[in-house]
C-alpha cells in the first residue's frame, strides 16, 4: 500500500543476529500444494488392461489411438453392452450365468480397450447398480472378477467417475477376505486402490468401512502379484494427511515382518510398491517411524540402495530412509552411529545417489545428508571427511536451484554445532574455513539473491558464520569480495521482518559506517 508507515521499514535492532543454521532435522512439510511427484512415475490410479492373473484378453493387437469417430463408436458400443448386461441380469432361464459373464466380459473388454476408456458412457447407461448386483455374495468367481475389473477401470477415471463407485465399496471390501478366490480379491484391491487414490474424502470412507485390515493381510503371504497390488492400494489408502491410518497399518499383526521380508527378498517391482508403503508410514506416523527405526528397515533400505539401479525403486527407498532419519532422533543417535558399518553404508549409498544423473535422487540424498549432518559432531566429521563433500561443493555451484538449496543445508550443518535455546550456533572452525576456502561462499550468496526466502535465510545464516567465524577477521573481506553486501542490501526494505533484520543487522554490524578517523 502506498502510505505504509515508514516505521515498518525501519531497521530494527537485531536481537540474536542469526539463529541456528538449520541445526535441527527438517521433515518435509506435511502440507503440500505441489503435485505429488510420485505420479509422474507411478500413477495414483491405474487402469487394468491385462488381467492381474494374466488371463483375459490381451488387447495387444488393437490400436491405442482412438480417433473421435472411434470414440463415438466405443461409447455407443458401451451403452449397448450395459443394456445387454441389464437384460442378462434380468434373464432367469437356462445358461443365465454364462450369459451374465459374457455380458460382463464384453463390457470389461470395452472398458479396457484404450487409454481413454468409455467410462462416461458406461455410467450414463447405468452400469454401477448392475455391477454392484453382480458382486453379490455367492456369485461365481468369474462373474465377480469381471465385475470388479469393470469397476477398477471406471474408478481409474475422473474424480466424479471414481466417486460413482461409492455404492460398490462395501462389497468390494467384503471380497478382499481370505475366503475369496485370490484373483477376485486382487481385482477388488485394485479397484479400491483407485478409489483411495482419488483423495482424502474417499480414503476416509474406505477406512471407515474397514478396508485397511483385509488389504494389510493381503500383504502377508509371498504371492507376488497380490502383494504388489495390495501394497499399492495401501500406499494410496494411508496417504493421510491424517496419520491414523498409517499408525493402524503398522500395528497389524505380521505386517512389519512382511514389509521387511519383501524388502529383503522380493523382486524390484514388488520392492518398489512396498517401499512406497514405507514412505507413507514414515512420513505420516511417528509411531510407525519409531517401530521401523527399531527394526532392520534401515539396513534393508541401504542394501537396496546399494544394489539397485532402478530409479523407480531408488526413489521410494531413498525417501523412506530420509523420513526415518528426519522423523526420529533415535535413527541418528543409536542406529547410524559413526564407526558402525551401517553408517558407512548409508554415506556410501548417499554418495552414489549424489553422483547419479537423476535430479530427484540428488535432491533427496542431499536432504537425507542434511539431516544426518544435523546430528553430533562425529556425524559432521564423518560426512566432512567423506567423498560427499567435493560432490556437494560442485552441486552447490552447478545444480538446479532446488538441489542447491538442499546441498546448502548439508554444508551449513557441517559448520555448526547445535546449541540449546535460541542462541547463536557454535562454529566448527575447521569445517567452515575449509569449505569457504574451497569456494562455497559464493553459492550461499547466490541463495541470498534467490527469490526463495527459505534459501535466502539459509544464505544469510551462513554469511553470518563467515563474518563471525573466519579467523583473522577475514570474514567481512570474503563476503565483500563475493558481492555479499550487495546481496544483503536487497533486504533493506524487505517485507519479511526476520530476513530484513538479519540482513540489516549483519550489514550494520560488520560493514557499518565508521565515522572515525581510522576508517
Amino acid at each position, binding site marked *: 500500500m502506498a502510505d505504509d508507515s515508514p516505521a515498518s521499514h525501519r531497521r530494527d535492532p537485531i536481537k540474536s543476529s542469526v539463529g541456528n543454521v538449520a541445526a535441527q532435522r527438517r521433515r518435509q512439510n506435511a502440507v503440500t500444494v505441489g*503435485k505429488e511427484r510420485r505420479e509422474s512415475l507411478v500413477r495414483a490410479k491405474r487402469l487394468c488392461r491385462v488381467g492381474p492373473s494374466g488371463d483375459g484378453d490381451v488387447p495387444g493387437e488393437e490400436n491405442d489411438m482412438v480417433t473421435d469417430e472411434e470414440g463415438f463408436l466405443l461409447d455407443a458400443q458401451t451403452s449397448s453392452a450395459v443394456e445387454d448386461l441389464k437384460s442378462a441380469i434380468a434373464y432367469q432361464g437356462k445358461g443365465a450365468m454364462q450369459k451374465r459373464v459374457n455380458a460382463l466380459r464384453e463390457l470389461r473388454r470395452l472398458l479396457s480397450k484404450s487409454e481413454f476408456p468409455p467410462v462416461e458412457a458406461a455410467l450414463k447407461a447405468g452400469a454401477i447398480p448392475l455391477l454392484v448386483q453382480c458382486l453379490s455374495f455367492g456369485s461365481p468367481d468369474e462373474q465377480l472378477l469381471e465385475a470388479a475389473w469393470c469397476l477398477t477401470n471406471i474408478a481409474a477415471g475422473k474424480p466424479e467417475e471414481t466417486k460413482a463407485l461409492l455404492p460398490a465399496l462395501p462389497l468390494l471390501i467384503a471380497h478382499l477376505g481370505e475366503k475369496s478366490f485370490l484373483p477376485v480379491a486382487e481385482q477388488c484391491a485394485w479397484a479400491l486402490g483407485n478409489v483411495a487414490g482419488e483423495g482424502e474424502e474417499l480414503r476416509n470412507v474406505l477406512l471407515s468401512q474397514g478396508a485397511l485390515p483385509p488389504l494389510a493381510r493381503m500383504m502377508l503371504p509371498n504371492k507376488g502379484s497380490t502383494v504388489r497390488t495390495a501394497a499399492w492400494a495401501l500406499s494410496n489408502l494411508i496417504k493421510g494427511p491424517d496419520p491414523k491410518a498409517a499408525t493402524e497399518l503398522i500395528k497389524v499383526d505380521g505386517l512389519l515382518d512382511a514389509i521387511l521380508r519383501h524388502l529383503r527378498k522380493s523382486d524390484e517391482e514388488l520392492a518398489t510398491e512396498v517401499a512406497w508403503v514405507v514412505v507413507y508410514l514414515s512420513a505420516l506416523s511417528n509411531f510407525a517411524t519409531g517401530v521401523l527405526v527399531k527394526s532392520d528397515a534401515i539396513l534393508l533400505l541401504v542394501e537396496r540402495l546399494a544394489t539397485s539401479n532402478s530409479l523407480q525403486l531408488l526413489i521410494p527407498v531413498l525417501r523412506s530412509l530420509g523420513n526415518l532419519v528426519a522423523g526420529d532422533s533415535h535413527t541418528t543417535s543409536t542406529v547410524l552411529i559413526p564407526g558402525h558399518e551401517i553408517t558407512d553404508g548409508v554415506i556410501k549409498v548417499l554418495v552414489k545417489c549424489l553422483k547419479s544423473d537423476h535430479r530427484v535422487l540428488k535432491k533427496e540424498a542431499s536432504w537425507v545428508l542434511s539431516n544426518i549432518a544435523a546430528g553430533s559432531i562425529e556425524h559432521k566429521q564423518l560426512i566432512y571427511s567423506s567423498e560427499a563433500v567435493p560432490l556437494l561443493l560442485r552441486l552447490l555451484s552447478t545444480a538446479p536451484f532446488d538441489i542447491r538449496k538442499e546441498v546448502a543445508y548439508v554444508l551449513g550443518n557441517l559448520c555448526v554445532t547445535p546449541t540449546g535455546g535460541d542462541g547463536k550456533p557454535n562454529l566448527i572452525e575447521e569445517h567452515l574455513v575449509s569449505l569457504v576456502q574451497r569456494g562455497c561462499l559464493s553459492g550461499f550468496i547466490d541463495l541470498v539473491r534467490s*527469490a526463495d*526466502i527459505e534459501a535466502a535465510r539459509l544464505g544469510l545464516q551462513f554469511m553470518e558464520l563467515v563474518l563471525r567465524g573466519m579467523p583473522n577477521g577475514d570474514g567481512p573481506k570474503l563476503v*565483500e569480495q563475493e558481492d555479499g553486501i550487495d546481496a544483503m542490501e536487497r533486504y533493506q526494505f524487505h517485507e519479511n521482518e526476520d530476513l530484513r533484520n538479519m540482513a540489516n543487522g549483519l550489514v550494520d554490524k560488520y560493514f557499518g559506517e565508521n565515522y*572515525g*578517523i581510522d576508517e
Partner: protein
Amino acid sequence: MEWNPETLQFLSQCFLHTLSPQPEPRHAAESSLAEAADRPNYGLAVLRLVAEPSVDEQIRQAAAVNFKNHLRTRWVPSNDLNAGPTFSPILDPEKDQIKTLIVSLMLSSSPRIQSQLSEALAVIGKHDFPKSWPTLLPELISNLQKAAQSSDYASINGILGTANSIFKKFRYQYKTNDLLLDLKYCLDNFAAPLLDIFLKTASLIDSTASSPGGGSPATLQPLFESQRLCCRIFYSLNFQELPEFFEDHMKEWMGEFRKYLTTNYPSLESSGDGLALVDQLRAAVCENISLYMEKNEEEFQGYLNDFASAVWSLLTNVSQSSSRDKLAVTAMKFLTTVSTSVHHTLFASEGVIPQICESIVIPNVRLRDEDEELFEMNYIEFIRRDMEGSDLDTRRRIACELLKGIATNYKKKVTDIVSLQIQNLLISFATNPSANWKDKDCAIYLVVSLATKKAGGTLVSTDLVDVQSFFLSVIVPELQSQDVNGFPMLKAGALKFFTTFRGLIQKPVAFQLFPDLVRFLGAESNVVHSYAASCIEKLLLVKDEGGKARYTSADITPCVPVLMNNLFNSLKFPESEENQYIMKCILRVLAVADISSEIAGPCIAGLTSILNEVCKNPRNPIFNHYLFESVAILIRRACERDASLISAFEGSLFPSLQTILANDVTEFLPYAFQLLAQLVELNKPPISPSYMQIFVLLLSPDSWRRSSNVPALVRLLQAFLQKAPNEVNQEGRLNQVLGIFNMLVSSASSDEQGFYVLNTVIENLEYGVISPYMGNIWNVLFMRLQNNRTVKFQKSLVIFMSLFLIKHGATNLVDTMNAVQDNIFLVILEQFWIPNLKLITGAIELKLTAVASTRLICESPVLLDPAAARLWGKMLDSIVTLLSRPEQDRVEEEPEMPDIAENVGYTATFVKLYNAGKREEDPLTDVKDPKQFLVASLAKLSAHTPGRYPQIINENLEPANQAALLQLCGIYNCQIV
C-alpha cells in the same frame, strides 16, 4: 455510536469540514472525529455513511479514507510500546458487521471509494484471512463469477485487486505448515476461477484486438488491467512452490503469457498511458516467468526457448526507447536468471553474446533523459544511485547485472566483447566529442560497474581495460579540462572512476591531479563538487601495504589553505548548504593536515558560522554529525600542537554552544556537552568563570531529564570533577552532584550512568571531602539493591566497591558500610560481591575487581579473622574463576530489560563524537598482571601462618579452581604454604 439521522448528520458535517480550506473548522472537525473514533461502532457508522447514496460523493470519499485509517490503527492494536499512542480496539461484534458489509459495498461504489475500501479490506484480510474470515473468499468468487458473466470489468478488477492484496503474504512469509494450509485453501478455491477469468479476458482481448481498428482503448484498458492483476495473483500463488493446479494448466497460462510478450496492440500502444498499461502486463509476465525459471526450471523447460527469444526481441525494442523502465528491468532480470541457470547454454551459440551486448546492454547503459534530469534536479538521489548502490532497479545497473550473469559461465567471451565495445564507444566519442559525449560516459560506466570489488572496498580490479592507461588516456583529460562546468556528467563519471580505482592509481599520477580535484570543488554542478570532495576524502584514506597512509600531511599541507577555502565556498552553492560529502571531506582534511594557527583560525570561523546556521533548523543529521566531528578534531589537533589556541577556540565556540543550551536545540545538546567536556579537559586549572556558569546548568536536574543527554552530561561532569575538584566542593555543589547520582541510580535504565558519576567522584576527590557523604551514598545503593537488583546493577556495585577500596583502602570501605548497619559488609560480601565477581567483563574492570578482591582477603582484618575462613575461601574461589576462565564460560547474558523511557516522543539520540572522546583510564596503573598480584599476595600472606590457607583452599575452592590456582602458582613461581 448508533446509526441514526443524527449520526449521519454529525459525521457528514465533520467530514465536510475536514475538507475546508479554513484551519479552524478543519481542526475542530478533526478533533471531534478523533474523539468519536473511540466510541464503539464508530467504524461501522462511517462505513454506512460511505454507503449512503444521498450523501455527497466528496464527503463519502473523505469518510472512506477515514475508515481505512481507522481500521489500520484499530483492527489489531499495536503491541509496540514505542509506536505512539494506543487506540481502543474495534470490538468483535462490530468487526463481524463490517466484514459482512464491506465486499458488496466495495463492489458497488465509485472507483475512488472502491480503492479506499479495497485497501481497508486488505487491512482486515491481513489479520483475519482466511481463518477468521471464512466467508470472504467464497463471497469474492461468487461475485467474480457473477461479474464475469456480465463482463462487468469494474467489479472484476475490484475483486481481483482485493484478492491480489490478500494473497501477497504468500510472497514473503516463511513456508510453514500454517502458511501452506492457508495457501492450499486459497488454491483449492481460487486457482480455477482465476484461470477462468484469465482465459475469458484473454479471448476478449483477442477478439477486440482483431476487430477493425484494433478495438477502442477504452474497451481494452480494463481488460489489460485485469490481466495484470491475474498475473500478480499468479505470482503470489506460485511463490512458495509450484501448485498442482498450475502445473496441470501450465500450458494455458504460458500460452497467454507468451502472447502478451510477442503481440503488439497498436490501438492502445499508440498513447503513452496505453503503452504503459500493456508494458505493466508484460513486466508482470516477466516476473512470473523469472519465478518459474528460477524455482521450477524443470517443469518450465519446455517453454524456455520460446520465452527466451520472445523476451530477447522484446528487449531489443524496449532498449531503444527512453521510458519503459520497469519492463526493461524485469525482462533483463529474466535473461539474467536464464544466464546463471543450468540452461545457460542458450547463450553459448556463436553471436548471441555480442548481440545481447550490442542491442540490449549498451542501449540500456547509455544515459537517458531521465538520468540527466535527475543529475540536475536531485543530486542527492543521483549520487545514491550512482555511487552508493541504491540503483538495484535501474536499467543501467540491471544491464550490468545481466553481463555479470552471462560472465559466470562465459567470462572470456564477455570480457572480450565488452572491451571491444568500450573501444568502439571511445572511438565514436573521439570523432565528435561534443555530440557523442554520452558514448564516453557509457564506456566509463561499464568499466566502473563491471569492476570486481576486492577486500576492504578500497581495492578494485578489472579485466576489461588496463586501468593505468585508461586513466591516463580517458580520465585525465576530463580532470584537466579547464572548464569545470562543461559536460558535467562526464566530469562526474571521471571523478567516480578516479575514486573507484584510487588504490590502483600511482601516487605521483594522483598527486599531480590534486590541484585539479581542488578546482572541481568550484564546479556549479552539485554532483561534480560532491564527487570532487568525495574523491579527495577517499584518497586521504588510501593505505599502502603495511597499513601506512599513502597521502600524508606533508603531501597536502601546502595546498590546504586553497583546499579549505574551496571546500567552504562550495558549501555556498545552492542546495549544497548541508552537503555531507563536503563536510566529510573537511573532517578528513582536518584529520590529516598539519593544523597551524593560520589554518585553524579560518577553519574555526567557517565551522562556527555553519554551526550557527544549522542550529536554527537542524535537518541533515549526517551533515551535522560530520560538522561536530570536524569541530572536535580541529580543537583536539590544533590544541595538541599549540595549547595557547584554546582561548581563541573558546571565544569562537562559546556563543554557539550557549545558543544551543539557551534555545534548547535538542538534537545538538549531546554534541554540545561533549564539546564542552573536551574544552574543559584541555583547560588548566583554575577553570574560567564562564565554565562555572555551565557547571551550574549541568547540576540542574532539568538537564538530566532527557535520557539522550545523560551520557554526554556524565562525560562533562567527569571533566569538571577532574579539572576542578575544589570548585566542586564549594557552595554545596557536591551535594547536587550526588543528587544527580541518586536520581540516575534509582532507575534501572540509567543506573550505569549513575555509577559513572559516583566513580568519578570517588576517583577524583579526597577522602576527607567525600567521607561525610558516604553514609548517604550507601543508603541509596542498599535501597536500590532491595528494590530492584538487576545483575547489571550488582556488577556495577562490585566495581564501585572495588574502586573505593583501591582509592581509599579496605578499612574505610568496611567501616563506612558497617556504619550504616552493623555487619552489613559481610552480608553484602557474601550475597553480592562473591557471586557477581565472576560475571565482571572488560579488561580494566576485571583487573580492578580482581586486585581489590585480592587486597580484601589479604589486608582486611574482617576477612583475616579465623571466623571468616569460609567467606575467605569463597571469595578466593570467585577470584580464581574470574581470572582463570574465559569470559564466555563464566558470564551468561542477562536478558535485556525493556527500556521504558519517561520521555516518550523525544527522538534525539546520543551519538558519540569520536574525536571528542575520552580515553578510558586505568585507575590501577601500578598493577600490571592481576594473576601475578593474586598469587604473590597469597604467598606473602600465607608465609605468616603456614598451613592455615592450604586447608581453607582445600575446603572451599572448587576442584577445578584449586587446580587453576596451583597452576598460577607454578607460572609465577609463588607458593601458598
